[in-house]
């Protein structure tokens, strides 16, 4: 089974390919939208490449954190802790990362927060599940 480092290096290459960058320019903390100028078509390309290269199912809502703000709003409305909703949906992210996301998403007018490392964490978990 691939180590997380091996998964990261392949995800890094895919993202670098799609954004026409050198792999070294892509760090786990690189923000896909704000730093790389990503658009929805780029997310689509990433999803297709992850699916083809790793042979894993790719849920675009999850891997690209598309429902993050909705989840937070919903859990606030229901009087739940945001951490619970985020843990259910993004169990593959570290608790620290989920906490950062919850804090950043609370600020309006911030570009989507998705980082390259979030995508790699999703892939690593999917690869682990497949054994």
């Amino acid at each position: 089974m691939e180590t997380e480092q091996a998964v990261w290096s392949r995800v890094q290459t895919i993202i670098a390919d799609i954004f026409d960058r050198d792999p070294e320019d892509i760090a786990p903390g690189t923000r896909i939208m704000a730093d790389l100028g990503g658009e929805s078509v780029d997310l689509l390309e990433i999803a297709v490449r992850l699916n083809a290269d790793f042979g894993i199912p790719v849920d675009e809502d999850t891997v690209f954190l598309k429902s993050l703000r909705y989840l937070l709003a919903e859990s606030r409305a229901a009087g739940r802790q945001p951490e619970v909703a985020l843990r259910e949906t993004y169990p593959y992210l570290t608790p620290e990362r989920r906490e950062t996301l919850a804090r950043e998403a609370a600020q309006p007018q911030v570009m989507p927060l998705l980082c390259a490392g979030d995508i790699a964490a999703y892939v690593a978990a999917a690869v682990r599940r497949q054994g």
Partner: protein
Amino acid sequence: MRVVLTGAGICSAAGHNFAEVAAFLGGNSSPFEPSDAFGLPGYAVCPAAPPDADGLGADEVAARLRAWRRRACVQRGGRFALAAALRAVSHAGFSPSCPLPPETPVLAALGPMLDAAGEPGLFPLQQADAHSVGEPADDAAPGLAALWLLRWLPNTACAALNQLLGLHGEALTVNAACASATQALGLAFRRIATGEAERLLVMAGDSRLSAHGLLGYAKARALCRRDAAAASRGPRPFALDGDGFAPGEGGAAFVLESLAAARARGALILAEVLGYGASCDGGSLTAPDPSGRYAEAAVRAALKQATLTPDAIDWIAAHGTGTPLNDPVEAALLARLFGNGPAVLALKSWLGHTSAACGALELACVLACREAGYMPPIRDAVSFLRSDVRFVRTAAPFPGPVGLVESFGFGGQNAALVLRLGDPKE
């Protein structure tokens, strides 16, 4: 309104600006190569670059396109069009500090995408790849890029140009087979002549240099067969032994504007467009009407709009493909209408057949030749189909300024444009 050309851009095997093109057309090295590198051996082709190179040139425009992240979304022919368009805009005197007005419409003449083998994962679509009910769509053809379709949609290059230049006027892609570029120029001319637009950008680009592109014309028996040793002998337009066309590739673009608008901004004027005519044979889907009567109607309509008689024409950039179907019909038309008057150029003997782009690219070559003061001969032809047409047999001084561009395409698409080269005050 009087209509003038104020900027021209080129991206071709002949070069990437007037000076390079004039030097190429004044030289005698063969641009034709064996088709082997493009996936289907046995023919002569005229590539702008090897299959793995982009052929965009070495200037700032080429660098800008190479740095543009979406370049792979545009097929090869569309990228030639983009390079030519950016050059035309700059040649017309527009720049980032003085940009083309955002309402400027764009007319694009682009060919179909035929490079099936260049789309990894597309063919053959295996049973196992095919999307079956209940599976996520991503499972179909897993090797295929998410937006492979953009390379196949005809309007992608036109949309891309609007993005690159920040334009928001009407964007229209024209496909009329090998008459596409001439028809796009004609439509642009009409829009300005009628006052519908003050200025338009016309770009054209095409490449059929891929295994499947070549296969299309090989199966239709339209290509000149050459083994690798003989491939430097290209097609032979208007020659007795013309045996087919040689596919080429490239792009050309023009800024057209009203004479008043051009004068108001002190633009350099390359030529005035005087008349346009178009028609369709309404007969065979491939071969031209043997009588040439509808092609003639297009030429006559262009002359009529220009209020000129055939004896006013100094030069003709003929369609001249080298095929036994086109050339005799076109040569007979030229003899009927013009006799031995105008000098007849056949630039496909130098560039190959650049398909949807040919009318624009050949017009750009004519402008380059006039600037250099000479006309290139028809390459590789020894005995011509007729003696009552003045085919350019040896390099000669460029004649008078008034001329005609003819483009006749598959489907009986006929288009003709009459122009006077140079500034009208000359």
